[in-house]
């Protein structure tokens, strides 16, 4: 009997150990994964506002700062190169964990004419999202509806990422975040990068319309129908961008089309391209490139949106549990440290890209200690 036990254990362990090792060490972990995973670490039904969108959102809005100033909790459920088709599934996914009072959909990702043609890119973006979602019935629906092959690699990412030298996974950050149990910066990323602003166009009064590409149009209308069925408030927002050339302008004009569509369906659309003055944005100081804001822009935009939510939409804060309150207070502390860190390095020659990981946090702790 002992012999059979030993043999069975040997064979089973020779399969299980390598599989475990590979699934733990060979995955893709970047700021997108960490942000998405961080969302699921929030206490259920404790988030007041959820933001959806692409890479404009997480450098341009700070949930921790909004909590500090206005008291409501929020989260940026956004990923790089997010696109039209995915948003509806993402909202469904979020609503199965949280009951926000309001969801905000950033509409820049609604102009993506290449998305359907470049299937490989679209699937890579899908993975940036699905790699962070825990297993659930809804996840199986997402994967079966949005993919037609290699489904197993969405459940077991190592099938896709094994041996990938070019994909340095930040497993240390993932591990430390999981151990802590929540994120400090709530998915915020930023950089000290600067780009020169070339011939900014003033579009504050411009209402020229350009229709969305066909597929994006279909998905967007589909999303609007879906939003009508939701209980929570739905607001469409376009984060500020520098309109410098014809391509930017064309995209801006599609936002005017979105404006009209949204209004026809009974929702509000706020185009922050037209609100540079209102927000107090300086195109030369508040952006790191024409599509994305830096910390300066982040602070201003968060204040603008926070005030709007508080005053115009009366979003009030939920009562948080004691433990949750402590976590959010820590987030406030760290976001302020992060802003301080930004100011220290704002004008450095070297370009830094920041997202929440142990290395960045230890640097923030150093700043904290220097105050003590």
């Amino acid at each position, binding site marked *: 009997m002992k012999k059979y036990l030993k*043999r069975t254990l*040997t064979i089973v362990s*020779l*399969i299980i*150990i*390598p*599989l475990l*090792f*590979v699934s733990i060490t*060979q995955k893709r972990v970047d700021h997108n994964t960490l942000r998405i995973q961080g969302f699921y670490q929030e206490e259920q039904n404790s988030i007041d506002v959820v933001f959806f969108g692409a890479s404009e959102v997480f450098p341009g809005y700070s949930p921790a700062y909004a909590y500090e100033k206005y008291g409501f909790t929020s989260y940026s459920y956004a990923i790089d190169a997010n696109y039209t088709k995915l948003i509806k599934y993402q909202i469904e996914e979020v609503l199965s964990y949280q009951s926000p009072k309001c969801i905000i959909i950033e509409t820049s990702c609604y102009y993506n004419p290449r998305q359907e043609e470049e299937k490989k890119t679209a699937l890579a973006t899908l993975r940036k999202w699905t790699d962070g979602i825990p297993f659930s019935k809804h996840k199986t629906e997402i994967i079966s509806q949005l993919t037609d*092959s*290699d489904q197993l*690699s969405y459940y077991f990412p*190592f*099938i*896709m990422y*094994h*041996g*990938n*030298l*070019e994909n340095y996974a930040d497993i240390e950050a993932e591990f430390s975040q999981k151990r802590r149990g929540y994120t400090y910066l709530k998915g915020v990323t930023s950089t000290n990068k600067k780009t020169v602003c070339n011939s900014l166009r003033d579009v504050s009064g411009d209402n020229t319309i350009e229709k969305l590409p066909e597929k994006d149009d279909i998905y967007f209308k589909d999303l609007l129908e879906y939003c009508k069925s939701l209980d929570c408030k739905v607001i469409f927002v376009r984060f500020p961008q520098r309109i410098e050339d014809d391509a930017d302008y064309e995209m801006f004009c599609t936002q005017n089309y979105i404006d009209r569509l949204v209004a026809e369906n009974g929702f509000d659309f706020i185009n922050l391209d037209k609100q540079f003055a209102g927000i107090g944005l300086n195109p030369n100081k508040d952006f790191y490139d024409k599509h994305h804001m830096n910390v300066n822009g982040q602070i201003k935009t968060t204040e603008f949106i926070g005030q709007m939510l508080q005053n115009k939409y009366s979003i009030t804060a939920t009562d948080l549990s004691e433990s949750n309150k402590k976590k959010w207070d820590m987030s406030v502390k760290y976001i302020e440290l992060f802003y301080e860190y930004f100011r220290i390095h704002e004008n450095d020659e070297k370009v830094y890209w920041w997202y929440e990981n142990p290395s960045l946090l230890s640097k923030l702790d150093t700043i904290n200690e220097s105050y003590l």
Partner: protein
Amino acid sequence: MKLTSIYFFAFVLVVCLVYYLIPKKMQWIVLLASSMVFFVMSSGILTVYMLATTAIVYGGALWLNKHRETFESRKQELDKAQRKEAKKKLKKGQKLRVAAIAVTVLGILVVLKYCNLGVEIANMFMGIFHLNYSFEMFSIVLPLGISYYTLMAVSYVTDVYRGVIKAEKNPLRVLLFVSYFPHIVEGPFDRFKDLSEQFSIPHKFDYDSFCKGCILVLFGLFKKMVIADRLGITVAEIFDHPSEHTGPAIVIATVMYTIQLYCDFSGCIDIISGVSELFGIKVAENFRQPFFSRSINEFWRRWHITLGLWLKEYVYYPVILSGHFKAVDKFAKKHLKSNHLINVVPAAYALFFVWLSNGLWHGASLKYILYGLYYYLLMMIGELCKPLFEKIKNKMHIKDGNKPFALFQMLRTFLIVNIGMLLFRSATVGEFFRLIKQAMSSFNYFGGAREVVTISIEVIYAFVGVVVILMIGIVKEKNKTVLFRDLIYQKPFILRYLFVLFFVTCILTFGVYGPGYNASDFVYAQF
């Protein structure tokens, strides 16, 4: 079913379970049933061709047997002269019968596989005579392993003719031999005698043998998934767009391709040999560290061993015992002055058929014929110049056992093989010569290496894998009498455990599987 897919291993596991649970008398039936399932899953309706070939050789063997039995029963009644006459008549008749059977079975293969070659040649003639007509190519799908099972079927009926084996009365046993799923995909060419004996004996589950079989499978997976498929990505990129790459890159890609082909083919053979060993059935050895060969003759005794053996037994030997060979022999004796030439020329005549067959077997195009004849020519030149080489060797005082000279011989053989592989990989003969020219256009190998690695940095894993199997190859060369996996099994449990753990982890980490790679099918499975 790809041999590196999880479905294949699930299939093998199920077969193993059933195989060891049912009564031992029925084990061969399990193998037959699973082989048929495997075949039908891969070839569908084309299974009919394999069944037809099997039926022809089965019936043919019984037909040969009947005639021999008739002779045996009647010969007592005859006197010595009559017996000799009857024996002669039987021999002639049997020869015609076996030839007819072999030609029919090979005919199926030739028509299916080489009809497009015929079209190619016909069109070539049309071009030569400036006739404004070209024949259309056929679009034909081949049944799984047709080049392998056809030759094995021919060997079965020929062995019956030669009296090496008796005709098998049970058609299902012949079918099992022909369709046995481990060797149907890429060989090796087994003999009916070896396999049927093993199919007939009961196989009790033996844990150690089972584990050794698994180790062999792992080794094969490592060669195929970590080395061959990884090299294949870079090799495909360079050979699909040769004009975008430098000469040195082409040369490096050729060497990579040679190693890729070796790891692909021998890796596959290891997988199926290992799988077969799980059932307690040993298939023939097909590779024996071929890159340690010191001559091309030796190379072809270490690479695709069973093809060489098949050609020797079923092409070479019949030719050297034939009438037309004897005529050439006589001619040589009469008209050639040098003793050396008298020895070489007749054998060269016989070997021409062997190498033509070798080339043709590899592919249905002129390129492959040239591939076979390339080696033939080099070997014949080598034979003819043998006295000269001996003289040079003596003048340089090189004794047998001289290590640097042995290394020189291995590198020389490797170079010759690589040129052959470049021809094998080129789309056409014309492209081959263009690539040779391009390869000699520059000697910046440092730049070429950088160019190759840039295509996919992860090709480095393959290089490390090559070092690993090279080290294992050296161990195997030094221990020719013991199997490598037996050597591992002699080590303490903890070392064996770690060795296997290391290999499994390497395959899972560095192996090519899942999305994100180009599809890779076994190169030799197209035959």
